[in-house]
């Protein structure tokens, strides 16, 4: 039974791991910290996986656990050395759909998001991932009205950072 659950978890996780990578990218600024946060999120996902019932999509559940870990549980580990610059993150685009402007936009977007506070990061991330206000308010635990107000403010802040 345990083995079965474990295999299911590994399949689900592997297929959706990109969500966790994106969360790590916006909440950390170097590869060591990225790996550290990734590991903590993995621990939390597995710890709670037995409580996960198929009534929600695995990915929806993953957003919540990943963001909660990044915002509330994660502490920068002391073994993390903060020397690498954020530019070290490379976004390799496949040759056939190579688009220079989009790559630059993506880089600008990541570095702008990193300048926001933790809550605004989560709001912008959920907006970029096309989540509904209902899901956003549910994930963060605030009312839908407040989620809208906060989202507009977060977007304004992001625009200011992108176009100072």
């Amino acid at each position: 039974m345990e083995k079965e659950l474990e295999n299911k978890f590994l399949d689900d996780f592997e297929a959706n791991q990109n969500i966790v990578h994106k969360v790590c990218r916006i909440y950390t600024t170097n590869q060591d910290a990225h790996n550290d946060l990734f590991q903590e999120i993995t621990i939390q996902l597995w710890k709670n996986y037995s409580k996960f019932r198929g009534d929600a999509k695995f990915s929806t559940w993953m957003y919540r656990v990943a963001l909660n870990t990044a915002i509330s549980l994660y502490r920068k580990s002391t073994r993390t050395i903060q020397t690498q610059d954020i530019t070290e993150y490379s976004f390799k685009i496949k040759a056939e759909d190579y688009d220079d402007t989009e790559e630059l936009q993506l880089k600008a977007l990541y570095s702008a998001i990193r300048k926001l506070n933790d809550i605004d990061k989560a709001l912008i991330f959920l907006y970029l991932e096309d989540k509904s206000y209902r899901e956003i308010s549910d994930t963060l635990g605030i009312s839908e009205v407040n989620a809208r107000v906060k989202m507009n403010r977060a977007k304004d802040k992001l625009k200011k950072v992108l176009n100072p």
Partner: protein
Amino acid sequence: MDLDKYKKAWENQPEETRKVSKVDIYKMAHSKSSSIVKWIFIIGILEFVLLNSLYFVVDMEEAYNEYRQLGLYNFMFYSQFVLYPILFYFLIKFYLNYKSISVVDSTKTLMDKIIKTRKTVKYYVLFNLLYVFIFGVIVSIATLKTHPEFNSKQILVSIIVTIVVLIIMVIILWCFYQLLYGILLRKLNKNYKELAKLEDLN
């Protein structure tokens, strides 16, 4: 300015090149967590243990003899019947709060529960500091009673000095405590305020 073009760039972003393999996911999932919640639990338990282990360090026999001389034996003896239930109450509350913390909750609920868990220990420490203070005052009054040769001025000065020393001691301990949790929860408190800001206005 519109964010649409950035959103499009976001949607078209390539998958992470450093994919984590199933084997590594398995290894990570079974490694030890170093989350804030775990630290709050460890530090909380340490506080309960440290505050109560003082009883084992102090030679109780000798201490009780001194209390006897000061006429405080009964007070000390019976105060234990009050102290231990209070300790257990805090311990159980701390454990239940800790157990209720779930990363599957909404962000706000999760932060609420973490802060509540920490507050239980905070109140326990506060309770202990208060007890130390009251106990200190009682002992000094009892000590003064054993020195009938003191005039009223001397008594007044001794009481003031005792109270000042006790207050300083309590403040130092309190600052140390705040520093400990301040470092641990700085980020969480900031995020909590950020999330609660709007709710308070309604």
